[in-house]
């Protein structure tokens, strides 16, 4: 990867958070389940720790720790992803110290529908922000 390095190992029991948006789904999905730009990084971005919706959006630029109604999070663990044969790497940047990358064991392999299905199986029910301030 060109823009950030790998920094340490994430334990199997660590909780990871994925951000989503039920009111503005991308290609019909509130949570992505495949790499958005595999030409940049053939991985899905998550955040380290069990973050609330407010805490998750605070990792984005120009977002105070106040989520909008309809924004949400879902959780998994690094171990659950590894059991499904994904690699989990801690890849922080200065402005997003929680950033985690999830990729296939062979990172060069194209992400398939089966990969997306196995990825989705790793997550519990989403939690949505209700009655946000923005």
């Amino acid at each position, binding site marked *: 990867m060109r*823009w*950030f390095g790998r920094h340490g190992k994430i334990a199997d029991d660590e909780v990871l958070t994925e951000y989503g948006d039920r009111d503005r789904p991308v290609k019909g999905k509130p949570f992505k389940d495949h790499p958005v730009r595999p030409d940049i*990084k053939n991985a899905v*971005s998550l955040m380290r720790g069990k973050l609330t919706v407010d805490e998750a959006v605070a990792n984005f*630029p*120009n977002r105070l720790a106040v989520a909008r109604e309809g924004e949400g999070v879902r959780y998994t663990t690094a171990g659950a992803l590894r059991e499904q044969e994904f690699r989990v790497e801690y890849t922080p940047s200065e*402005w*997003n110290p929680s*950033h985690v990358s999830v990729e296939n064991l062979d990172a060069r392999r194209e992400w398939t529908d089966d990969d997306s299905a196995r990825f989705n199986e790793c997550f519990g029910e989403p939690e949505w922000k209700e009655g946000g301030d923005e």
Partner: protein
Amino acid sequence: MSDQIHLRIGAEPWRPADTAKIDKVLNHYDIPLAGIIQQHRRYYIFECLDGHANESNLWAYAEITRQERRQILRTRDKQELQKLFTSILKSRSFTAAVAIDHGLEMAAVVERQRDTGPAPVKAASKAITRKAETVRAVNALAACCN
């Protein structure tokens, strides 16, 4: 030369012209969301202001000095980075742009705000809305003339 970045419609927001190259990515979540771009020996910050994980998003670009670049690169704390970027966008005119599906669609210059002026995201949104209304009016006029 203008102090505004040169953008190409259709370009990726984090590499907004063929003459622009990424100097540093400071925030990445599926795509680069904030950082520094170099173009024609000048440096610019770029920042996704809204729609970070959505199909359409709002971006800001502002020229910075080499001293400001060094200050940004020295900063390790995300809140300090946010303060720096917001302070830069509030202290000068900048370019706002809308991207759809990772391609720039429309851009507008945001004039320097008063210290008590709106947040950069509001100023950017207003400038883009005004530009879109102008484009619609021109298109309507052109349709009348045809």
